[in-house]
């Protein structure tokens, strides 16, 4: 029976929205850098890339390192979901720590590790039978190693979504304030309700909705925000008071494998704005 075994040490948060392109991976990586890099935090962070599009892996590793990982046959998130699959040579022993790639170790004691993803993860979805709890079981074995585990989710309802919910204490929902993006929210509500029906013992808390890539430009954006706030009010969800503005420094940082506070061209106010959101987020999850 699947029961809740809360991760004692690490706060585990899934970043999820049923709409793609809302900035989940960028937000995941920048939060990881923030809590690992700033001296007042110096946290040990594990990023779990749970998206077959592997954007978080691309951001954190770069092409050459990623290619070497694949070439060297190192483990990825795929191995977590396929650890019990029998092959003609039998079952291989799965050791969770072998799936972890160190990304950065800070002088302040903070660090970022990654469980990378790969395209083949999509194949795991074709045979989802009894795989949904494998991620949680794996992360439970790593709970003492980290202060925070950030799971970057895929934008579709699948085995991977259930696996993320089961592994998490909190979810964080980035929403781009535009019409199609906001429709991802009711889809997420539906997904969470289905999950609660099936796993009613599991406590999963929505830490909040954060408006991402805000431009403060069009009336359409304001309308989208109002609609989301209204939906949040109806469902008693928290909406972060700090929003994340659109900045060209985010995609540039992704290309260079750097967070916004490390990019030389980022306007200070943009980096500060992210810092304010991160503070509010930390408070919400009790970090």
């Amino acid at each position: 029976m699947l029961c809740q075994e809360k991760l004692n040490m690490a706060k585990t948060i899934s970043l999820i929205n049923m709409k793609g392109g809302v900035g989940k991976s960028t937000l995941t990586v920048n939060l990881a850098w923030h809590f690992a890099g700033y001296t007042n935090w110096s946290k040990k962070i594990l990023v779990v890339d749970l998206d077959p599009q592997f954007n978080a892996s691309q951001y954190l590793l770069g092409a050459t390192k990623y290619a070497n990982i694949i070439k060297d046959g190192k483990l990825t998130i795929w191995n977590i979901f396929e650890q019990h699959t029998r092959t003609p040579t039998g079952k291989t022993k799965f050791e969770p720590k072998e799936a972890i790639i160190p990304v950065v170790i800070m002088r302040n004691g903070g660090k970022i590790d990654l469980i990378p993803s790969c395209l083949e993860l999509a194949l795991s979805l074709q045979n989802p039978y009894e795989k949904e709890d494998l991620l949680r079981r794996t992360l439970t074995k790593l709970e003492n190693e980290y202060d925070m585990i950030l799971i970057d989710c895929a934008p579709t309802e699948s085995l991977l979504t259930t696996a993320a919910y089961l592994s998490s204490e909190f979810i964080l929902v980035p929403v781009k304030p535009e019409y199609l993006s906001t429709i991802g929210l009711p889809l997420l509500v539906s997904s969470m309700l289905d999950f609660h029906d099936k796993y009613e013992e599991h406590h999963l808390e929505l830490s909040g909705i954060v408006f991402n890539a805000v431009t403060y430009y069009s009336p359409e954006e304001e309308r989208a925000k109002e609609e989301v706030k209204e939906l949040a009010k109806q469902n008693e969800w928290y909406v972060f008071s700090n929003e994340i503005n659109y900045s060209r420094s985010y995609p540039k940082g992704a290309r260079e494998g750097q967070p916004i506070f490390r990019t030389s061209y980022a306007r200070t106010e943009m980096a500060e704005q992210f810092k304010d959101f991160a503070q509010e987020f930390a408070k919400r999850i009790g970090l």
Partner: protein
Amino acid sequence: MNKPKELQLLTEIAKLLEKYGPDSCEALAILLSNEEMTQTIIVTLLQNIVLKAKSVSHNNVEQKPQVSKNAKTFRSSLVAIQERDSDRGTLLLQLFDGLQNKQFLPTSREMKTFAEDNSLVPITAKSRKSAINQFVKAFLTMPIHEIKSILKLLEEKTSIENSSLEAWSSIILNKTADIK
């Protein structure tokens, strides 16, 4: 050990033992036991004294070639290490030359953040040339396998193709052998 100045120097060194740890001091003692290396260090120290004296007199025009000469002197000290310890010297030269010709970490900021991210000695130097010397000095006493892993990391990080669409296309289309 009756000479007061030598005793004073020894006391100063003893104070530094605590800061840098016995392993670093022992490695330095091995380096200093090489006569050529000692000569190179003395020359470098003397040049630094000359440079400082010149900066006091605000003679900025003549400082530039001196810095360049200083870089050459530093490189020659790495060549001296290579003659004595081929593996270490070759790796250090590869690192130094890669930084000099901007193959690795082309900006001082990148050098600084790389040092931070990999728990190396923090880069405080303002100019790139001084920063390179400071960066490479951190590797003088590092175990060879660690130097190799840092070099590998640098090659991965600063690969020209690292963030290009072409590189990712190769991976996604299963042509990983094409990636450097």
